């Protein structure tokens, strides 16, 4: 059963992404409201993939990616950034610190499901 951690401060987007992820067979969705909340969830639950926004309070998505990719226990977890920042330099920055993929909002649900499925090899 793939376990997907959705890190998003906006309840609307969190619900929408979770909704989409629940369409992946047997997927379990864990929700976090910011980077710190995500780290707490990571320490207590098995996570196969992280979907994170960039602009979040307390700890943003880029900091979270950096911490995850520099942690021996979590570094192999694929991370997909979902953000309103659509500029090329934003994308490059996120990929440079270790994000596995980058999607600009508004997202296409099919595209997201396809990407997640390919990264967790469902």
């Amino acid at each position: 059963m793939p376990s997907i951690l959705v890190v998003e401060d906006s309840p609307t987007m969190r619900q929408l992404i979770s909704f989409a992820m629940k369409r992946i067979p047997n997927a379990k969705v864990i929700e976090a409201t910011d980077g710190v909340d995500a780290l707490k969830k990571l320490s207590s639950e098995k996570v196969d993939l992280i979907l994170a926004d960039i602009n979040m309070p307390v700890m943003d998505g880029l900091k979270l990616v950096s911490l995850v990719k520099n942690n021996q226990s979590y570094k192999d977890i694929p991370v997909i950034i979902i953000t309103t920042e659509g500029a090329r330099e934003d994308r490059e920055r996120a990929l440079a610190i270790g994000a596995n993929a980058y999607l600009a909002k508004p997202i296409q649900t099919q595209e997201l499901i396809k990407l997640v499925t390919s990264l967790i090899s469902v």
Partner: protein
Amino acid sequence: MEAEPGITKKVDEFLEIFKKGEEFTKELLRENEKLRFRIAQLEGAVQKPADEEKIRLYEERIRSLQEEINAVTERYRKVEEENKDFASKYVEVEEINNALANLYVASYQLHSTLDFDEVLRIIIEIVINLIGAEIFAILLIDEKTNDIVPVTAEGIPLESVPKARIGEGLIGSVAREGESYFAAEISRGGDVAKGEPIVCIPLKIKEHVIGTIAIFSLLTQKEGFTNVDYELFNLLAGHAATAIFSARLYTQSERKLTTIQSFLELLKEKPKR
């Protein structure tokens, strides 16, 4: 010693008989050969029609198999066409499903609270995340002055969004007519200072307009509007309006309730003095 004439005669007779026997045997052998040949001929004649019959049957079988192959090929072609049709229908259903999910989430969130500021925040989230707007404002009609007053803005300071009046300018026209406005050219963006958005959605409760959402520019990656966007605009026009209206009423009634409760508290306290 001379042989007796009787014996010689008998020998000759025997030889004669023997020769005749030899000739008769040869004759029989020839006849036998002829009969064998004839039998072979007759056997061949009997075999030939049997082979022809087999060939005819085989040809018939080949023809029927060929027909079966053609029918199967045709069926396969039809199934393949149906398959393609199903695949494209599946994609369509998926798109509709996703659109419905977006609309459901947006509507669910809009009606999830009676807090006015929270409702405004949810509308902002929907317009940013689901539609892909970068600069926009929500304006509400002040029923006393007929002004259309900006109550929140995203991407620009609230003070930079000018007030509008019902019937005046683009925003005012949308508020009066109650019809959404979409600029023909959206890539260049609108003009905030002049109050000229690229998209202006009336917030309506039935035919009563309570405000507008004015979008001045879209996120760089957003190239145009899809069908889902128009559905979201329609949803916002109705549901955002009722959510704002309900939240405002609730806030007002809460305020009144607090005032009345305070007043009652005062009345209760008076006799004690």
